[in-house]
């Protein structure tokens, strides 16, 4: 069609005759000339912010205080806590003061009780009886740090999960369903070809920008890091990467 140019092929239907194409161009130009609506009006931003804040507080198991002020949509540095601590806080809120168990049943962990004030609980990992809703049979440290893992730096980043001072982790309980459920975690380990008892550490984050679970396990040839997508279950897991660790 002689009246078409290469740009037309990307925008306009290729069955148009010359008159129709001219009309199409005219209407497109008309539509694109309409002014931009501009930024979101402040009252709409406030509304949405309030709504999201309420959702967040519901997720955290808290009820917004009456007359609570609106938090504007502005970035703040993420506040991290180990997932076990978040779980402890959740169990304490539900159980009214029971001793909670750690997610990770590392035998070297120090036993302690958690106070109701989860945010002020000591960072030591807890253990004990009477935990409700969290009964892991999978050993290892479990985090949901949201760390952006990179291919080039994977081993070093994964090694940080085993460090005495572990990486920061997210604080919202319930968000990391995979890691909160020992059965699901065991299934994930099986899905990536690791034994349930081989887990040294697990973390929810991203790998090359994609939501992922990072598992540090002990294999036959030593420690290795295995990365899978977060839908990690037999028959569905996508193993994104793996590497031996020193």
């Amino acid at each position, binding site marked *: 069609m002689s009246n078409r140019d290469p740009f037309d092929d990307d925008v*306009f239907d290729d069955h148009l005759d010359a008159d129709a194409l001219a009309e199409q161009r005219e209407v497109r130009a*008309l539509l694109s000339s*309409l002014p931009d609506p501009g930024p979101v009006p402040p009252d709409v931003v406030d509304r949405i912010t309030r709504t*999201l804040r309420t959702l967040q507080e519901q997720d955290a198991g808290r009820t917004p205080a009456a007359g609570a002020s609106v938090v504007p949509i502005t*970035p*703040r540095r*993420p506040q991290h806590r180990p997932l076990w601590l978040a779980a402890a806080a959740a169990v304490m809120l539900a159980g009214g003061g029971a001793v909670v168990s750690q997610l990770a049943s590392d035998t070297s962990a120090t036993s302690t009780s958690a106070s109701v004030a989860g945010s002020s609980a000591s960072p030591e990992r807890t253990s004990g009886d009477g935990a409700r809703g969290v009964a892991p049979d999978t050993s290892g440290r479990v985090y949901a740090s949201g760390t952006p893992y990179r291919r080039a730096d994977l081993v070093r980043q994964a090694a940080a999960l085993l460090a005495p001072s572990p990486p920061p982790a997210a*604080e919202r309980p319930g968000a990391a369903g995979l890691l909160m459920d020992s059965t699901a975690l065991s299934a994930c380990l099986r899905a990536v070809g690791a034994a349930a008892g081989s887990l040294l550490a697990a973390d929810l984050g991203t790998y090359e920008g*994609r*939501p992922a679970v990072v598992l540090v396990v002990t294999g036959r040839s030593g420690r290795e890091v295995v990365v899978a997508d977060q839908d990690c279950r037999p028959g569905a897991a996508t193993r994104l990467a793996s590497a031996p660790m020193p």
Partner: protein
Amino acid sequence: MTSDSDDASDAELLAAHVAGDPDAFAELVRRHQDRLWAVALRTLADREEAADALQDALVSAYRRAGSFRGDAAVTTWLHRIVVNACLDRVRRARARPTVPLPEREPASGRDEHASTEAALDVRAALARLPESQRAALVLVDMHGLSVAEAAAVLEVAEGTVKSRCARGRAALAALLQPDSPAAGPVSGSSAGSGNPATSSDVRPVPGGTPAPPSRVGSEGERA
């Protein structure tokens, strides 16, 4: 504003939200809210409806973040949710009784396209299009997305987007002709309860003003 938040990609922010970061989703919203607002307002042409749709969409995105698979860009995913929220409102509004807008003269000619009056006419005409054509035109001609990007947002084939745009433009051209039987005052709220122009792929709505048949072929909807 922290460097951490600034440096994180959209996907990283979404993953951080899923992992429990209490601030990640708000940062994602802050980044894209103006573009999403523009899509909502252009699609619905009504401030309150657009605000409601944007809020619905962001709540949905907040809750469904865990289902994001990374197959498309986060922005595409967000746009998709907003467009769907808008189209839901269009459909719901269509089911409600309409309130006629005050009558006003149609634009007197195409040389007045830049005027406010003409812009109002264009928006009113756009509101009369079927939602599928309206959404395609908003994304491609008004929002500047490529056909491929719009296809990803709408989850249809690129040919379908082109076809919807072509039909929508043809219907708009007919609606904006001052001497066209399709021209005239638009009934219904601009949130989508206006009667859509009828073309070969359009469900007729009682009381709708028919537009001339489109000159383009079938939409080629993907099964």
